[in-house]
């Protein structure tokens, strides 16, 4: 049997619709963030497809009638070729536990699962390298805290949370979300955090990774405008944190700011409390939810700062952020004016 493989780029709306129809026929919903689809056709009919979104392979499907024909492996060969051509060598795949073996035969290794419904696999040993890297920063104490932050941008609210965590802990590990999907670039976010927290002595600032709130572990975090919440992903992300990352650093606590405004983050916080303490072979991690500090009767948050930026109200930003953040915003806003 011979199949014809071709690529469907993001721009090809008509052909993308055909892929969408095919996916629906096998009960899958098309991910909007897929950049390129690879499809296999037989007699002008789509019989298999697979998509590439960043470094994640998604929406991989085969027509029922084609299973067992070796088509899955041909499709994966094509899909991997496309991914490598795009310079993406370290890949992830989300799939159902039933297909773990198929992907293992394509060189993928199991990382973690969620609710026995979704598993995450990768084609490198990078999680092992990352774990080894983390172990170098271990500090043993009674209370070892952790915080995961995007800081888009860093505000006095963030500063308060970190200060509180440092006061209550022997040591604190702060992870900065690495994915460049936010208004402020990772490089800038990291720099602002670093400069604004230099005085705290019992703190390690870590660059995030693919394994901590990234497009691989938690894709819905980055499309929260759509208010899409998928507990499968929040669970996946939290399982990786508890079972893979926290043990390397001996983490006993995780600190979060309470979240009255953003639905996705609030959901994440609530699920965190449940999952990080649930009985398991790994030690529980206590979740401490801290209140937000307020200014002018409203909580200080990064979204408030971004809104003020949009409205060009620079003076009102000053009392909400530390000096390095203010300096960067002032610079960004003056540049914008020049353009206008």
């Amino acid at each position, binding site marked *: 049997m011979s199949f014809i493989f071709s690529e469907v780029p993001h721009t090809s709306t008509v052909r993308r619709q055909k892929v969408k129809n095919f996916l629906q026929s096998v009960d899958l919903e098309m991910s909007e963030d897929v950049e390129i689809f690879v499809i296999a056709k037989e007699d002008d009919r789509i019989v298999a497809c697979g998509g590439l979104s960043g470094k994640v392979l998604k929406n991989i499907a085969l027509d029922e009638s084609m299973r067992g024909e*070796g088509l899955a*492996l*041909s499709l994966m*060969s094509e899909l991997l070729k496309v991914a*490598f051509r795009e310079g993406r*060598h370290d890949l992830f795949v989300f799939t159902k536990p039933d297909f773990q073996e198929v992907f293992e035969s*394509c*060189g993928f290794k199991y990382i973690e699962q969620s609710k026995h419904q979704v598993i995450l696999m990768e084609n490198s040993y990078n999680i092992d390298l990352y774990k080894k890297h983390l172990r170098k920063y271990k500090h043993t104490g009674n209370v070892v805290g952790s915080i995961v932050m995007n800081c888009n941008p860093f505000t006095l609210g963030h500063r308060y949370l970190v200060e509180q965590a440092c006061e209550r802990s022997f040591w604190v590990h702060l992870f900065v979300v690495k994915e460049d999907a936010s208004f402020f670039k990772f490089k800038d976010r990291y720099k602002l955090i670093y400069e604004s927290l230099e005085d705290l002595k019992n703190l390690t600032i870590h660059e995030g990774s693919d394994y901590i709130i990234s497009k691989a572990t938690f894709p819905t975090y980055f499309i929260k405008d759509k208010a899409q919440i998928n507990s499968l992903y929040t669970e996946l992300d939290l399982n990786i944190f508890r079972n893979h990352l926290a043990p390397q650093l001996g983490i006993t606590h995780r600190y979060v700011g309470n979240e009255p405004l953003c639905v996705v983050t609030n959901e994440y916080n609530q699920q965190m409390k449940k999952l990080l303490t649930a009985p398991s072979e790994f030690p529980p991690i206590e979740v401490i939810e801290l209140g937000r500090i307020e200014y002018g009767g409203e909580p200080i948050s990064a979204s408030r700062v971004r809104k003020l930026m949009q409205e060009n109200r620079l003076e009102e930003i000053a009392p909400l952020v530390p000096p390095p953040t203010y300096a960067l915003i002032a610079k960004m806003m003056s540049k914008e004016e020049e353009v206008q």
Partner: protein
Amino acid sequence: MSKKLETAHAGTLESSDAFVRVIPIDAKGIEIELESSVEEIYGDAIRALVLETVTTMGIEGVKLIVQDKGALDYVIKARVQTAILRALGEPEPDWSVL
């Protein structure tokens, strides 16, 4: 002699073929990661063949990830050679070495 390598691959995952990935590493030496449908019988022979092929080409500081689907010796050898040539960015192999 140490040559500059890029990440590269050759082959497919289909039956009777092998999919070979070449990844430069910081360490010296040659790392081989093999997954084969005939691991039990030919695993060691395949590893030896891959190592020999890479050594003959004078390459060091690489990791090779090989997914073998029951390929014959000369297929594996050809896939490894091609992957390495691609990794070196050389369009023409040095035939005297091969």
